[in-house]
């Protein structure tokens, strides 16, 4: 009887000590905010285009952290979906066509002769990549443009074009070798995906 009592007391003491340590640690090393949101945000393309129906990439990252579908980002395309699926350990699903198609990267261009200087596109640009003032011609800082499309709609005279980014010597890449080898049936899809990119 006495030995049982001693055991219970000893275990109780240990439980108290560890409980105190855990309690202290949970206060001392408390994580501010949700770190997964930052990780998701880092994977999103940051075009801030709102095609996912959220007002920017970070809000969508927060929504994903709260269980929103990961396939609502057309600018990121399948590679972003794959990366998100990898991070969140969920099934990679195809892009939700409702939010748009994956398109080649573009950059906005203002036909300056037609610009009437209304500043509407400047207000629409999420990354401040359009330069200009009221009644003055506007222009796009191409290196800052994310190709989000948001400036096209507000333009009253339709003078903004979305131009595809042309390959240059600086961003050219060797094409993937076309391969005729397929070890197992499932590799066939991979090989094609590789050559398509």
């Amino acid at each position, binding site marked *: 009887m006495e030995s049982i009592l001693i055991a219970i007391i000893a275990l109780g003491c240990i439980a108290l000590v560890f409980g105190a340590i855990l309690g202290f640690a949970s206060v001392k090393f408390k994580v501010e905010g949700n770190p997964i949101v930052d990780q998701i*945000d880092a994977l*999103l*393309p*940051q*075009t*801030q285009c709102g095609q996912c129906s959220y007002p*920017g*990439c*970070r809000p969508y990252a927060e929504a994903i952290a709260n269980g929103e579908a990961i396939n609502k980002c057309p600018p990121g395309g399948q590679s972003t979906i794959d990366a998100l699926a990898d991070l969140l350990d969920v099934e990679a699903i195809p892009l939700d066509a409702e939010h748009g198609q994956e398109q080649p990267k573009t950059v906005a261009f203002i036909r300056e002769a*037609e610009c*009437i200087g*209304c500043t509407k596109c400047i207000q629409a640009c*999420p*990354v*401040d*990549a359009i330069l200009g003032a009221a*009644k003055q011609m506007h222009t796009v800082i191409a290196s*800052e443009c*994310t190709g989000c499309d948001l400036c096209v709609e507000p333009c*009253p*005279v*339709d003078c903004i074009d979305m131009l595809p980014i042309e*390959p*240059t*010597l600086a*961003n*050219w*890449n*060797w*094409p*993937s*070798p076309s*391969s*005729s*080898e*397929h*070890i197992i049936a499932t590799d066939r899809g*991979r*090989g094609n*995906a*590789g050559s398509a*990119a």
Partner: protein
Amino acid sequence: MSKIWSFHGGIHPPENKQQSLQRPLEALPLPSRLVLPLQQHIGAPASPLVKVGDRVLKGQPIAEPTGFVSAYLHAPTSGTVVDLVDHSVPHPSGMTAPCVVIEPDGEERWIELQGVDDYRSLEKHELAERIRHAGIAGMGGAGFPTEIKLHLSDDHIINTLIINGVECEPYITADDMLMRERADEIIGGIEIAAHLLTPTHVLMGIEDNKPEAARAMTEAARRSRIDIEVVVVPTKYPSGGERQLVKLLTGVEVPSGKIPADIGIVVQNVGTLAAVYNAVHFGKPLISRITTITGEAASRPGNREVLIGTPISDLLAHAGVDPNRLTRLVMGGPMMGYALGNANVPLIKTSNCIIAGAADEFPPAPPAQNCIRCGACEQVCPAELLPQQLHWFAKGREYDKALNFNLLDCIECGACSYVCPSNIPLVQYYRHAKGEIRREQAEQRKAEQARIRFEARNERLEREKTEKEARRKARAEAAAKAQAAKKDDAVTSAPKADPEAALKAAKTAAAVARTKLKKAEKALQIARDSGESDLAALEAEVSAQQQKVAASEAALKAAESTAPAKTPDIKELKLAAATARTKVTKTEKALADAEAKALPSAEKLRSSLATLRSKADAAQHALAAAEQSARPAAPAEATAAATADLKQLKSNAAILRTKLKKARKAIEAGDSSAELAQQVTELEPQLASAEQALAAAQAQQPPHTGPDLKALKSAVAIARTKVKKAQKALDEAGDNDDLRAELAQLQQQAAAADAALEAAQQATESP
């Protein structure tokens, strides 16, 4: 002899070097055109210093560097700049890049050259600046601006200078020929580099398949004033790779992601050092180089001294290349070079070899088979990577994993592809994967930048909002304070200053006095009726009250006389007249009632009716008089009101229109409830009347005096865009009557807007 270490892997492909060593070094005749790409080096493209039509002298700078990692470019001969144009350049993509095109005049007139006899007397940075101005970039193939490498002793401790005379790739003999013919120039260059870097050891590596070059260099090194050790290394590909040569000669491995300078070693190519010698001693910029032209299609293979910018077609013609046998034109070696799409590209600073390959020399690659996991690629990889693993990852686009297996340490030597029994194009996979990784990293950087800008913008908008709010609050507070101050003022000054207030106070006082008197009288009456004893006191009270009433009424009269003659307020008068009239009608009704019932009060009512009628008449009169007096002021007000009214009418009409539209849309969308239908029927007449009113108001409105040209212009632009959009919609929708009608209407509108704009422009121009 110093010790020779060894590096992992490597292969022994057929050398094929003898073909191009049968003939001595020859100079190519002056070509008819020279095409000089602005970027022949790693880093930023140079920016041109000449324009079309300029006459240039041999050795004159024609482009200057645009950044730290960039290089000068010089005219290879005297002549005229005939074009600044995008021309196809030697690049695996076959794309074009900006080039300066020079037409030689054949005079070969040099600019004034300034060499130095004793470079040791110069400051080191001055010496490096001379090398920079000579436009020298690594001639082994990479094209890294040389003076940057010679500057490295500023922030690195350099203990070993290694001269790369290995030239391990098959076919190429340009460095071999240079070492045989110009050993002294190379030694001179080494001395300058050693002066700049102050290493403790100078080592020179030469493969044992170039005995003549090794002998020439050893002899020249003996004559040198510094200690240069010529090391003959066994022939193995790729011992000419920078990292492999460092390992071979020093036994030290350059860590992943670092450069040799981080471990105190600088490697320079022999061609580069010869160019440095010429730049320092004679002031000659880099305008020519030795290039090997070989291959089975060439009948006179050999090494040629060519001007930078010479079209490859000229070189092929000089080497007697048979166009019928030529199937594959390769720039660089067979292992690391790339096929050229056409011979119209120029030779650049890094072009060390051109191979005019025949069909049996470069047969088409056999189809790739499955990987049999033999591990041969791992055996030959000089970077000690796992090519098989990298192959899977590159193929499956698992670039993260490829990075973890150090894909970026791959030097793309092609040894793995060479030995692969399944003919898998391994190195092509790695090149593609490396490019994709770089692209992804660039996108990542851009995304990060976009995120920062987006956050900065949101912060700014937020700040602006709070500032606006703060300003609004401050204004409201100031207004409240001003109001309070006014009130205080009014309270203190009221009794004396405000006669109106005094009048009111007097009126109230008189009324109170009258009521009190009435009460007192009533009390007296009751007391009298009940026969109370205390009559005397009550009577006194009544008389006192009577006096008070008299006094207060006198005060009231006085106040009325002091109060300024009040301007008759039409509104008040109207109200008074209306009340009077109502009272009259009410009394009339009561009277009729009383008469019908023959009540005794009828007589009383009749008399009060008479007084009320007279009162109503008086009120009406007063009102009429006031209105008469007020009229003169009205018209001005009316016009001001009219514009406001017009606006009001417009917005009313617009609101009604929108409502109507919404209702209609809802109906169209399928919500066909009776309520909505009723709403529509209700709204339609309302809208019609509102539009009528608006039209009437506009008709009354005086015509616009100054037509706003700008507004008209943008109206025209907007109208045009609308027409365009409608047209587009029509095109897309095909035959649609509604759209067509809308388009016609819009076109009319646009035409009208145009006409208005024209008229306005004429009007403004005519005066």
